[in-house]
């Protein structure tokens, strides 16, 4: 799967994109967040407060309960501030 990070998430994590083979224990976005936080460092910091984070799977806004497949593109970002 492809993981994308935007705005301050990208900065805290130190990169904007990575490829990941779906870990066996990851069924949903929530599972993925737990998996990423275990890496510690920037990831733990970036995902510290999930109320400040939004997620899109395959370019669709979705909730943290959305199911994941290995072919998905998952993007994490702060609430949007364009316009």
């Amino acid at each position: 799967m492809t993981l994308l990070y935007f705005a301050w998430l990208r900065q805290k994590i130190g990169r904007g994109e990575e490829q990941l083979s779906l870990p066996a224990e990851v069924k949903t976005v929530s599972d993925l967040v737990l998996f990423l936080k275990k890496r510690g460092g920037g990831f733990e910091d970036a995902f510290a407060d999930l109320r400040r984070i939004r997620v899109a799977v395959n370019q669709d806004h979705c909730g943290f309960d959305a199911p994941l497949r290995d072919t998905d593109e998952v993007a994490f970002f702060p609430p949007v501030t364009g316009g």
Partner: protein
Amino acid sequence: MITIRIQSEDFDIAAEIAKLDAENTGAVATFTGKVRREGDLTTLTLEHYPQMTEREIARIVEEAQTRWPLLGVTILHRVGRLMPGENIVLVAVATSHRSAAFQACEFLMDYLKTKAPFWKQEERNGTAQWVEAKYSDDKAAERWRNK
């Protein structure tokens, strides 16, 4: 005609309105968002999620089309580094009657502000800071839910 463009260059509002013109247009409402000239603000940088942005804006326009009979919609959004006074976004809507033009234009802006994947970073006195999403923008978008 539906036009959606993400671009770093500025836009010409009059030219965009002219392109939008349809047979039965009686009303054109536009909204232009600009970088305010505030004392210490030196630049505004807009980041976005390229694979998603145009798709999300297209969905927002489709939602507007189910609500009002729109003859044309143009949405242009700039990305990259912008200076105070520069244009950020243009929403233009052509309809037969004015009430639909105003409502659709405001709806599109409210949804753009809360759904389209753009993020603003401000630079003040040499320090860059991400702009926080505003509660008032969420409230503005929520108004349309039950309409």
